[in-house]
């Protein structure tokens, strides 16, 4: 306990961790209030206060409710008949009508709840019979899964949903932003806790004491768990307070299924109990994350490397959480950090994980795996912690007994030491890329980039996309009357084939047509069905072209799959991490090693070294940015068909908001330029902050908050955060769309303004860091 107490003391004496925690807590509070107000603000479509009033009317006097609803509906129809959609009166009546419909929908939902759940049960019972008929054993996972569904939803069917409008809870369970803040905090705090002794050089002393090994590790592990729990409770609890003090909550005793997106929540419990369950599951997931970061800290023993590795882990998790799974019950999906902590997704429905043929409820599976992982991480982490195993240093037992000549081995090991470039810039490059064998990590990042590109761009297009491509290539260019005719005829042709199915079915059954004829038709039908679905997209695009024409914009038919890959890819996260790794220590490492005193006492150790650092980092940043962009271009051009580059940009529907008539290829060039500029600004920010903060962990924390946090807030639903999101510039299109929508001095106005602001900020940061480095 004493050792644990000292871990707490060390933590609270670390001003950065405490201030950072409070800062994030304030962010959480602010964002919670902002989110609640946004969700509940009256807009032109709905007013929640009005919905509550209408519901109250339903409860007090149903007759009056129906009378008023009929009157409002009739009035609305009159306006529709007149074609009046823009008057204030119509908007007010529509809002009221929507309120009534919302209430009626909710009442309908409550009244038909058990019938709708019955559908699930009956479907599962039917599936069981089908499985038996095709020979699937009752002992198989598939059969057991249906049994589980029946069992779970039979209990859910019997829950009693109180007759009330849900208030507060539907907003709360969907609010995932605190998860993000918890993750950011743990990524910073856990390495600081684990590596506290490494950072101060006390390791040797501490590890020779009686309790300085296993007991110390246990204390650290326990403390990381405590920090995870406390952080989670506070960050998840604040939004509860925010909602309580703004809109308030409906009854905590109502069944969780009363919330419409928890319609098929598998737990037959009250909202209050569900709140505790979801808290518990989230806290367990965050403790798991802390354990992962702890293991990484012990492995890497350096804060920068740990942070980058942890960020990579989270990035991968997030990426995996966004892909579409064919098997919803996949353990990879069920154990994903972002999936587990998103209550509205994790508990949306029953999932059964296949564990050696048995069907295990996903929540039980997740809890069990997390618990086992925590135990395993505790044991493995402890062993590693005590044995001082570091990355790159193998114990004698692990050495591969190859007979390599000593001179060759020494030569390979020390090749970088032979590089002696005797000028200031040479040494800065050496320190940046070679001295700590960073080049090996860079090569690893390049490999990761290739793998990421391979999975993002290297996947072959689907059959539907090939059909879509054929149609769009056929129609490529401006809309013409011939093309309109083609579209009409093609639709007719497809509809005719599809419409014939029931006739052909009965003709085949009654022997009018042979099986060969029926097979031939059925092939045509299958193709027609797929084509019809795809062709709907083509028709939608034709409608889009007409809509653009009304707005005075010219859109063409363009096969846009490849262009969408190019323009709407996420920002280069791999390059971002590489920049963090390379440049966060540009100045901070001088202070960490204690060399700063000596350095600054030399003739060239101030302004010349300052300039040299910025220039070497700048050249490195530019080389990697261009190299990674080149990799993207190579993959894009190799794996994607990119037709009609001269077509107007608005030919790609997602660029609908663009007002300018630039071509696709012009935009492509501009996009890459903006990305390059964005990454150069990022390097300037990281390098300046490295001098201003002087500690690697504070640099990483600051840059992450300033860049990644706004980006993730957008992903979690806070769209306005996009205006201050640097990753928006790093992807270019994200910010361009915001800029085009805002329409401030054309499509690029806001983008240029943001770039100018960031550039001005960089200039200020560089000036300030120059003054502090040169002791001015």
């Amino acid at each position, binding site marked *: 306990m004493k050792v644990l107490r000292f871990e707490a003391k060390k933590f609270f004496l670390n001003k950065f961790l405490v201030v950072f925690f409070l800062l994030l807590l304030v962010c959480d509070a602010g964002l919670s209030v902002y989110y609640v107000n946004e969700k509940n603000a009256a807009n032109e479509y709905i007013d929640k206060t009005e919905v509550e009033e209408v519901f109250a009317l339903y409860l007090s006097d149903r007759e009056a409710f129906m009378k008023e609803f009929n009157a409002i509906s009739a009035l609305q129809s009159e306006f529709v008949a007149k074609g009046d959609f823009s008057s204030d009166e119509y908007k007010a009546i529509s809002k009221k009508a929507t309120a009534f419909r919302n209430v009626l929908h909710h009442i309908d939902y409550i009244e038909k709840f058990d019938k709708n759940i019955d559908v699930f049960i009956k479907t599962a019972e039917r599936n069981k019979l089908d499985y038996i008929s095709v020979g699937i054993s009752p002992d198989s996972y598939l059969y057991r899964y249906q049994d589980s569904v029946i069992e779970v939803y039979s209990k859910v069917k019997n829950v009693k949903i109180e007759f009330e409008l849900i208030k507060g809870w539907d907003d709360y369970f969907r609010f995932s932003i605190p998860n993000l803040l918890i993750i950011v905090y743990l990524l910073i705090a856990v390495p600081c806790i684990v590596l506290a002794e490494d950072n101060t050089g006390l390791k040797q002393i501490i590890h020779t004491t009686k309790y300085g090994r296993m007991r110390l590790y246990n204390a650290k592990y326990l403390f990381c768990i405590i920090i995870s729990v406390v952080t989670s409770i506070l960050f998840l609890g604040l939004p509860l307070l925010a909602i309580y003090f703004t809109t308030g909550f409906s009854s905590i005793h109502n069944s969780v299924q009363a919330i419409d997106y928890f319609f098929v929540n598998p737990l037959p419990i009250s909202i209050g109990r569900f709140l505790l369950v979801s808290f518990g599951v989230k806290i367990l997931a965050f403790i798991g994350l802390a354990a992962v970061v702890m293991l990484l800290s012990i492995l890497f023993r350096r804060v920068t490397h740990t942070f980058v590795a942890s960020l990579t882990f989270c990035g991968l998790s997030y990426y995996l959480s966004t892909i579409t799974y064919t098997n919803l019950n996949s353990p990879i999906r069920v154990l994903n950090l972002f999936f587990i902590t998103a209550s509205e997704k994790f508990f949306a429905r029953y999932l059964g994980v296949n564990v050696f043929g048995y069907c295990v409820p996903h929540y039980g599976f997740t809890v069990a795996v997390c618990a086992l992982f925590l135990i395993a991480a505790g044991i493995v982490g402890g062993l590693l912690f005590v044995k001082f195993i570091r990355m790159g240093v193998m114990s004698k037992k692990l050495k591969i007994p190859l007979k390599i000549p000593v001179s060759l081995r020494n030569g390979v090991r*020390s090749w970088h*030491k032979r590089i*002696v470039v*005797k*000028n*200031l810039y040479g*040494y800065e490059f*050496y*320190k940046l890329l070679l*001295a*700590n*064998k960073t080049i090996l990590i860079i090569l690893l990042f390049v490999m990761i980039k290739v793998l990421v590109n391979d999975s993002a761009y290297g996947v072959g297009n689907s059959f539907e996309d090939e059909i879509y491509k054929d149609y769009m290539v056929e129609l490529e260019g401006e809309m013409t009357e011939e093309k309109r005719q083609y579209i009409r005829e093609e639709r007719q042709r497809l509809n005719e084939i599809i419409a014939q199915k029931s006739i052909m079915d009965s003709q085949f059954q009654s022997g009018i047509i042979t099986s060969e004829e029926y097979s031939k038709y059925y092939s045509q039908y299958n193709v027609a069905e797929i084509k019809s679905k795809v062709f709907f997209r083509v028709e939608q695009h034709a409608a889009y072209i007409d809509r653009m024409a009304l707005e005075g914009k010219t859109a063409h038919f363009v096969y846009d799959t490849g262009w969408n890959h190019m323009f709407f890819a996420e920002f280069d996260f791999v390059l971002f991490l590489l920049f963090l790794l390379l440049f966060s220590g540009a100045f901070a490492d*001088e202070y960490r*090693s*204690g*060399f*700063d*005193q*000596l*350095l*600054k*006492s*030399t*003739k*060239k*150790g*101030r*302004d010349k*070294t300052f300039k040299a650092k910025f220039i070497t980092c700048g050249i490195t940043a530019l080389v990697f940015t261009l190299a990674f962009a080149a990799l993207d271009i190579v993959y894009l051009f190799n794996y994607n068909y990119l037709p009609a580059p001269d077509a107007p940009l608005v030919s790609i529907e997602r660029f609908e908001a663009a007002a300018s008539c630039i071509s696709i290829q012009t935009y492509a060039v501009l996009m890459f330029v903006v990305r390059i500029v964005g990454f150069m600004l990022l390097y300037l920010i990281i390098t300046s902050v490295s001098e201003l903060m002087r500690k690697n962990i504070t640099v990483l924390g600051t840059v992450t908050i300033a860049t990644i946090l706004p980006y993730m807030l957008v992903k979690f639903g806070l769209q306005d955060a996009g205006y201050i999101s640097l990753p928006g510039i790093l992807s270019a299109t994200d910010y361009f769309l915001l800029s085009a929508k805002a329409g401030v001095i054309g499509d690029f106005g806001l983008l240029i303004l943001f770039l100018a602001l960031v550039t001005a900020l960089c200039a200020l940061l560089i000036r300030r860091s120059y003054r502090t480095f040169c*002791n001015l």
Partner: protein
Amino acid sequence: MKINNLSKSYGSTKALIDFSYEFGKGIYALLGPNGSGKSTLMNIITDNLKPDSGNITWNGVDTLKMGAEFREKIGFMPQNPGMYPAFTVENFLSYIAVLKGVEKKEADKQVAELLEAVELSDVRNRAIKTLSGGMKQRLALAQAMLGNPELIILDEPTAGLDPKQRISIRNYIARTALNRTIIIATHIVSDVEYIAKEIIFLKKGVIADAGAPEALLKKAEGKVWKTIVTSEQVPEYQQKFRILNIQNNDDGIALRILSDEQPTPESVAVPPVLEDYYLLIFGDIL
């Protein structure tokens, strides 16, 4: 170099109070216990710290105004200097040479000579992280000498060295003191008593005394005594007098006592050494 009325405080703690001194060619020792202001003074001279008041001039010109021109004349060895663990010894010295603006050919020559002088030639291609503490200390000294600086500032240069190495370093410093100013900050009196031209005693940020070693020793004459006692008498003497040294002899315990008057009738006055004077100055705070 002239230091004029330098003062520096850290919050309510006054590290340096109105420090003034003039340094010419030769070795100057700055003696004082931990916390007396030695490192603060070193860091102010090298412009790693800004003083609260006062200035430093070099040949009459303010060193802050000289900027890089002044730093070109300095060789600095801080206390516990940081180095790049992955750099080799030779690489590190070459880098320092670059930072000091030494021409390449001259740098190569000086690096080779210095490695020889500090006995690190055999490990020139070893990474710094593989060196022992003493080797790192000698490397730190070597880098301070690079570029033939006119002013060399050494903060605890012999910390962590064995007696043989300490003598070797001391002799090396003495040899290189010709035509340059060397300031050595230390609390190990024996390092400087034979080589220093002048010794400055720094006590709580203020000059307690300063001057040539011989002149300072004269002030301690008649205040150092030797007396032989039994082991049972030692605690009593420790309570009554300031004991400088306790030595076991065949005929009893020989006590070396610091006292303005003869402590006991049996006591005999002995010639003082600089350490005695150090304790005379700092005895109240040690």
